[in-house]
């Protein structure tokens, strides 16, 4: 079939990781550091973030350092390929803390030469002033939470910065860091397709080689959820939301920043290495309140989840290096499901051999798929399959949440 041949080509040409990370013990490791504090909570955000004054940063620094030590003991001999400071607003932490964590990682693990060290930053003037110091501390990539390029929408989104400040932050990042990315949220209330297209044009002028473009979704346990339920605002209905998505794909493709994942765009080779670890189901350590990890030990894959509450995490991790409950290793089916769920987010899709390795039961993981249904989704033009692997088309990715349970067999 021509489509399959096309896929063969596509799979081999677009799988950008030279070596699949997989779930191997010798595989490379990502380290995620969660800083749980923000200056204010954004109304759309359901992440584990807290607004707090009088943070004892020395104690937090010690706890992170202790935690790195703890995980290094559990995962000796690994090579760290990426470090990611997320949050919350990690750009609020002092560069000394970032430095202490980075050097503790270097002390405990081998760190690859091309390690990617990303810091999520908000574009306020205070944080922009710290960019240089973070760079000195070892950070080589920033991901800036710009979210919108006009002040009205920024205000609606509850952001504490102006569009002007956002642009300043991007300009500074360009000078200071090797690489930078920024986030925008689209499909906002009242936003028109043409306004978004204009905004994307401005965004690509400002962009380096990576952009994250998220559709606004209303999450439970957020202020937006309440006001949306009360009908105080509305977001584009599904048809329009799909049009927004499709437009975004086309426009960005035209700018040479195609989507390599559902919401992430990059020039070839400029993907976020850290996030690619998640989507290729590699190992990563999660440090900080509420941080999750997936680590392989003795051929078994363990999920880790640190305690959510900042004070409890600080107290326990400060002493023991972790505030996670011991968890049972994941079943083969779980591993397959997670790897597929993440892998199908990528335009490149996922290779059968990587899925087999992810499942880790020594046989073909395809037993977990309903092949008749797989055929149906291919016939619909939503998926491409060949001997190498499976990838979704743009239309398929647009329906990922419904498509996954459809093609999965019972456990």
């Amino acid at each position, binding site marked *: 079939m021509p489509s399959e041949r096309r896929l063969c080509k596509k799979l081999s040409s677009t799988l950008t990781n030279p070596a699949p990370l997989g779930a191997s013990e010798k595989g490379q490791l990502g380290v995620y550091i969660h800083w749980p504090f923000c200056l204010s909570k954004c109304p759309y955000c359901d992440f584990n973030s807290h607004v707090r004054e009088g943070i004892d940063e020395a104690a937090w620094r010690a706890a992170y350092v202790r935690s790195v030590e703890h995980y290094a003991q559990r995962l000796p001999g690994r090579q760290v390929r990426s470090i990611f400071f997320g949050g919350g607003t990690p750009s609020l932490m002092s560069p000394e803390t970032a430095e202490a964590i980075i050097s503790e990682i270097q002390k405990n693990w081998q760190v690859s030469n091309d390690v990617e060290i990303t810091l999520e930053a908000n574009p306020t003037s205070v944080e922009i002033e710290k960019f240089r110091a973070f760079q000195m501390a070892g950070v080589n990539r920033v991901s800036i939470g710009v979210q919108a390029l006009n002040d009205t929408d920024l205000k609606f989104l509850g952001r504490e910065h102006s569009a002007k400040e956002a642009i300043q932050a991007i300009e500074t990042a360009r000078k200071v860091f090797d690489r930078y990315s920024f986030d925008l949220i689209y499909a906002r209330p009242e936003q028109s397709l043409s306004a978004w297209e204009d905004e994307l044009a401005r965004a690509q002028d400002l962009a380096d080689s990576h952009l994250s473009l998220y559709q606004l979704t209303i999450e439970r346990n957020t202020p937006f959820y309440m006001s949306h339920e009360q009908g105080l605002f509305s977001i584009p209905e599904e048809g329009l939301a799909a049009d927004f998505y499709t437009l975004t794909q086309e426009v960005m493709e035209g700018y040479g920043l195609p989507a390599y994942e*559902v919401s992430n765009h990059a020039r070839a080779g400029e993907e976020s290495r850290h*996030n690619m*670890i998640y989507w290729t189901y590699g190992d990563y350590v999660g440090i900080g309140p509420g941080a999750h990890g997936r680590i392989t030990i003795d051929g078994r894959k363990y999920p880790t989840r640190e305690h959510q509450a900042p004070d409890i995490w600080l107290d326990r991790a400060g002493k023991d290096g972790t505030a996670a409950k011991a968890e049972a290793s994941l079943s083969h089916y779980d591993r397959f499901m997670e790897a597929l769920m993440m892998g199908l987010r990528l335009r490149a899709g996922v290779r059968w051999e990587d899925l087999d390795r992810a499942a880790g039961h020594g046989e073909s993981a395809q037993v977990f798929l309903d092949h008749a249904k797989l055929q149906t989704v291919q016939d619909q033009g939503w998926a491409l399959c060949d001997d190498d692997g499976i990838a979704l088309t743009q239309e398929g990715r647009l329906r*990922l*949440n419904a498509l996954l349970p459809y093609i999965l067999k*019972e456990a």
Partner: protein
Amino acid sequence: MSHTLEHIRNFAIIAHIDHGKSTLADRLIQTCGGLEEREMTEQVLDNTDIERERGITIKAQTVRLEYTAKDGITYQLNLMDTPGHVDFSYEVSRSLASCEGSILVVDATQGVEAQTLANVYMAIENDHEIVPAINKIDLPSADVDFAKQQIEEVIGLDASGAVPCSGKTGAGIHDLLEAICTTLPPPKEGDRNAPTKALLVDSWYDIYLGVVVLVRVVDGTLRKGQRIKFMSNGKMREIDRVGMFTPKHVLLDELGPGEMGFITASIKDISETNVGDTITDEKRPCAEKLPGFKPSIPMVFCSFYPADAGDFEKLRESLGKVRLNDASLHYEMESSQALGLGFRCGFLGLLHMEIIQERLSREFDLDLIPTAPSVVYKINMTNGEQIELYNPVDLPDVVKIKTIEEPWIRATILVPDEYLGGLLKLCQDRRGVQEQLTYVGSGSNARAMLVYRLPLNEVVFDFYDRLKSLSKGYASFDYELDGYGENDLVKLEIRVNEEPVDALAMIVHRDSAETRGRGMCERLKDLIPRQMFKIAIQAAIGGKIIARENVSALRKDVTAKCYGGDVSRKKKLLEKQKKGKAKMRQYGNVEIPQSAFIAALKMGDE
């Protein structure tokens, strides 16, 4: 304490639902010292939670009271509290057959209702003396004269001896007790020395006692150690307990002629004890059986499916246990493509169905899916055969059918004039044929009395709810079966992506097929979650599509952000979706959650 026949009074209390029958019974019990004040709970005779909560009586209950009347004589009063709902008129008829008199309770604020009428006529058929009791006189809106007038005008009963009373405050209770002793007759016959002859009034399973048999002795005696015989099946047992309810269980040495009480005889299987049977002495049997009762006939059918397919065995066991106390429940296994394995059940009526369902969910913690209620059709085949159809799915090929007959009822409805128009339309819409429209009462109390012939099928489908809502609750309704009649009936099929959904098939009149089919399609459209594929919902008669709706396909359903911290959460969601699939039914390339069909079946709730 032994009583001569002429000092025994066996009586039933009959009333429309909500007229305070059980409260009045409570007060009689308390006044006669059956229970201390501290032992009184609301509606002591309503034993089950469902009875208490809904304020209804399902099972008839018997209590023996001692009352010393003004004439100085201590009377034995056997009180039977009877169900007030139309579904349980069968229970009522049993109770009435074992008594000689009735207290007719009429709410002083409401007057006579449809159910009152039905029960009174049943009592009159049983040659009962009737003492009207005008209850709830404590209420400010009570109008005793109005109630009396209605009793005379609507029922045609002499209300001069009516006793005004209040079950709530106790006012007039002594007058009522006096009236029972003076107006109601003692048991008619009864020869102590004749061979034992007793009527099996009711029976139920008690986990401590085994099967408890409620009896009314006609001749002879029942005593502990006696060998007895059930005449319908020849089963022989030894009595191990004889007693009465006060309403507490009190053991007695014997039950004599005219008396009511219970016996136990180490019976484990309730099916041995046929209600209406005659119990006699094994060695010295009586010559003739008592006439007994007409057996109960299930009128309304529906299927129960466990929401969790794994609960099928539990459902089977639970139905078995419920049947132990409710011989009027019928069931047999069946299998549905849409809903899996379940049971087709037969009930006395809609309330009975609801109560069984509630018992199953409450007492046995079962999550059930009931299908749309249906009735028994008679199918006349072209080859002359007649088939009884219990489930619309089983309707034979239409070319082999000559005619279809459906059961009809004769309904009596009492309604204040202002709501009459709405109810006439309702009856008309439900293919009703008016037989009578008269007015009872006068002035502001005037009410219309409607008598309609209606197909039962139209009544089992949300008729009662509509009646209540159209009349703001003021209309009362009762019915009796009125034979079968041919009609232009068709099987309405609901199809999802061209495939019929068996659980949604129904037999309807051709004229209402389109409305019903359209309604079901519209409802399913809202209930079936959108999927990646377009879903066609159709209603069809034979090959002809009469209504159609589409569920449009999903265009976008994807999580915007999914990083390391989201894996577990997203996986949980996925697992939930997968787990939901166990309850999914495949129709073409789409999977429909069972819950959509379940919700569609609850259509009558609207």
